[in-house]
């Protein structure tokens, strides 16, 4: 090993991008980063950003940072999607499209990984951070510092995976990197290592968040909030976080073993040497299937909040809603084999997992019916959140039925690995997860900013997303039935598939326009913020988050609420018995940079592990451990808010409310 390898590992000038489109991506990313840095510097906002945001332990601010990062990653994943659609619409017969086969494989691998890990997960943790503490009537999460660390690990993972735009390449092994393709022999570049460490670091953040929110919901509920008075979004979060705690360690192990195979020459999943590549497929889906429900459960929770509020009725079938969450939590751990019916398990094994997969549709169906029953004879207001719900309920039900079709092993033998499957899971994740979080963002936006999210642009965004979605994925169902396999970078003109791929391309463009409308929506909302200013309860809400000022003070509640009913705030508004709560002194966490510092060291560790820069690996690991230990022994991490300060602040908030309402 010469000195260059010692210092730079596998880094050299040859790892820079090799073709114009890759260069375009790299330059665009670097330009965006420089533009943001320049803007922050010239507007003199560094101190403000550092003090108010980067080192903040306030879950409301951490939530907004999660959503910001997820939004940026949505652009990255969306550009990938447009490239995929453009390639498949044009690469037919004598034409070979816009990117090479290898580059196409990198793009679809990046699209899947980034959309799941850094868009869907980011939006989910963002909403959970914003809403759960307020819904359960507490001032903070159980472990505020751990929460900040989780966010920065998520950010470090996202940053690491995007380094591949400039340095080296991305994995070509798909979003789940099956061996033997992902082994060193067939993927000799650093692409798979970027994938491993980006997900590993982001996944560690998710795991810690899972622990944190379970402790928060179990231990920090307001007095009187018994389990059967818990708001539905909090219930679904508890279900989802329970899945995180039991599923994510499996991912941690799987990724670590794959990296050991690639780096230390071990034989976990290799074709020779006593390895077992089918074990990888089992392990990754033992995490991967629960992951689907981790993402969808909080989206279900969002709808369970929105539908009653905009139907002016209480939620139908609360108890069955709670039971169906836990049925889904349990069942989601015994369906993973349906992702590989064709791998060659016995007929009995396939039959068991096929039946379980059909069964898991039942609790989901219970939820759909309960939402519809809630709407039945309700006084419905068709606001944007409600539009997202209606789009969801139609598409998600259709996609779910397609899923039950594929749950039958004989049908799956025909449909597996086809575009039918791709269309199915996009229906579940786009119209389920994404529409759900968009609905949630629109619904809770006024709570955290004090003005409404522009309705006009919101409607435009919704209709473009809806029609775009149908045009983009309807053709994929048909193509899949005609035998088009997924991940095709080229096909023969004689197949006659091009028109359908072209329609799918148009759909993708409409979705992109829908996203542009959402950006316009944000800008329009900010410009009209004075005109659209709202009080604490703009939607006639039912749960505790609507009882505090918009935006809520850092401490959420001047006096911790006492809960008497399921929809506590609704009950409070409709009874005359009001208790005057006494303000008391309480502790709040001080801001801390330790989470950001630890995540920076972990990023260095990950970068070193990708490029085999061993000194950086050691430096990153030691730095992270020492910072963590130093933080553990900081006994001066809180400050006291006194009752008199609270009374003073609250009087001010009331005055503002009186002016706006």
């Amino acid at each position: 090993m010469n000195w260059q390898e010692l210092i730079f590992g596998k880094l050299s000038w040859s790892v820079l991008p090799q073709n114009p489109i890759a260069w375009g991506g790299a330059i665009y990313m670097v330009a965006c980063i420089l533009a943001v840095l320049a803007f922050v510097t010239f507007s003199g906002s560094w101190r403000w950003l550092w003090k108010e945001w980067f080192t903040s332990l306030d879950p409301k601010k951490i939530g907004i940072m999660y959503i910001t990062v997820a939004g940026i990653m949505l652009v990255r994943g969306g550009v990938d999607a447009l490239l995929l659609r453009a390639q498949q619409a044009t690469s037919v017969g004598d034409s070979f499209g816009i990117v090479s086969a290898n580059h196409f494989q990198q793009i679809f691998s990046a699209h899947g990984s980034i959309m799941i890990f850094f868009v869907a997960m980011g939006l989910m943790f963002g909403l959970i951070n914003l809403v759960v503490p307020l819904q359960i009537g507490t001032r903070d999460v159980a472990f505020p510092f751990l929460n900040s660390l989780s966010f920065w690990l998520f950010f470090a993972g996202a940053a690491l995976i995007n380094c591949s735009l400039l340095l080296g390449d991305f994995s070509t092994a798909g979003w789940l990197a099956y061996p033997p393709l992902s082994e060193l022999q067939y993927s000799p570049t650093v692409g798979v290592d970027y994938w491993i460490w980006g997900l590993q670091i982001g996944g560690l953040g998710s795991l810690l968040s899972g622990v944190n929110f379970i402790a928060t919901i179990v231990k920090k509920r307001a007095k009187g909030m018994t389990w059967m008075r818990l708001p539905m979004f909090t219930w679904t979060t508890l279900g989802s976080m329970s899945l995180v705690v039991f599923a994510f360690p499996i991912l941690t192990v799987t990724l670590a073993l794959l990296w050991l195979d690639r780096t230390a020459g071990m034989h976990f999943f290799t074709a020779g040497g006593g390895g077992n590549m089918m074990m990888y497929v089992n392990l990754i889906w033992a995490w991967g299937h629960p992951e689907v429900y981790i993402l969808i459960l909080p989206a279900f929770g969002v709808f369970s909040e929105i539908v009653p509020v905009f139907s002016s009725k209480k939620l139908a079938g609360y108890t069955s809603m709670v039971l169906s969450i836990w049925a889904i939590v349990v069942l989601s751990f015994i369906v993973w084999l349906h992702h590989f019916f064709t791998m060659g398990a016995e007929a009995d094994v396939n039959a068991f997992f096929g039946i379980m997969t059909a069964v898991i549709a039942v609790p989901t169906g219970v939820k759909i019916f309960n939402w519809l029953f809630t709407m039945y004879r309700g006084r419905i207001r068709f606001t944007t959140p409600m539009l997202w719900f209606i789009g969801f309920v139609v598409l998600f039900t259709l996609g779910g039925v397609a899923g039950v079709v594929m749950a039958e092993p004989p049908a799956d033998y025909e449909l597996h690995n086809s575009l039918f499957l791709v269309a199915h899971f996009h229906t579940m994740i786009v119209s389920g997860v994404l529409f759900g979080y968009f609905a949630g963002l629109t619904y809770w936006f006024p709570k955290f900013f004090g003005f409404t999210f522009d309705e006009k642009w919101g409607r435009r965004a919704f209709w473009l997303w809806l029609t775009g979605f149908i045009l983009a994925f309807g053709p994929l169902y048909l193509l899949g039935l005609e035998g088009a396999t997924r991940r095709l970078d080229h096909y023969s003109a004689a197949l006659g598939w091009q028109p359908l791929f072209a329609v799918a391309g148009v759909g993708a463009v409409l979705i992109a326009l829908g996203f542009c409308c959402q950006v316009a929506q944000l800008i329009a909302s900010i410009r009209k913020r004075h005109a659209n200013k709202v009080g604490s309860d703009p939607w006639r809400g039912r749960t505790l988050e609507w009882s505090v000022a918009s935006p809520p003070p850092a401490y959420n509640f001047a006096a911790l609420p006492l809960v008497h009913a399921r929809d506590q705030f609704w009950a409070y508004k409709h009874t005359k018995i009001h208790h005057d709560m006494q303000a008391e002194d309480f502790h709040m966490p001080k801001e801390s940079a330790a989470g950001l510092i630890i995540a920076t060291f972990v990023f260095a560790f990950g970068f070193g592990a990708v490029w085999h820069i061993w000194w950086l690996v050691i430096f990153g690991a030691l730095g992270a451990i020492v910072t963590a230990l130093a933080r553990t022994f900081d006994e001066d991490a809180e400050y006291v808010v006194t009752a008199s300060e609270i009374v003073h602040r609250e009087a001010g908030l009331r005055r503002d409310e009186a002016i706006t309402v």
Partner: protein
Amino acid sequence: MMETQAHASDTLSPEERAADSTAVFGFWAYLMTDLVLFASLFAVFAVLRGPAFGGSSMGNIFNLPYVLIETIALLTSSFTCGLALLAARADKVQAAILLLSTTFVLGAAFVGMEVSEFTRLVAQGYGPSHSGFLSAYFTLVGTHGLHVAVGLLWLLSLTIAILKRGFSRGNMRKLALFSLFWHFLDIVWIFIFTIVYLMGAL
């Protein structure tokens, strides 16, 4: 400001009591994630343990009496750790420090013995890249060893903190969490000893 000299649990405010109980609950939840981590590694080991690929079987590459001594060292350290917690609750600083130091020495002996066993196996040509079985063995046992090593680092800094600040509320809480962690590693080791070594020797 948090009072550093308060240590007896009956002087805690309801807010502090709730915070301590939340910390213990959260730590249990974390331990469950670690349990799933080890369960996955055990599953991997069970899949790959078959006849060792192109080499000898487990029985004749491991030295059972040596592993038994390792086991005794770790189990004894768990016992002294439990005694240290009792001593701390009775506010006996010297006894607690002595017991924590014993725990550290025994834990360090365990890690040392494990490292030397690994070195011996690698020197004999049974390294982790030799076969799927040995990859699984080194990763499962090594992950446990890594946990013990991190625990030692934690124990060291905790002991220093107790010497500096005595049994402050923060230190008492950390001691209780550390003791949970240490007993957890003990239980995992009992499974490793049974499934990897004893069943391997059959």
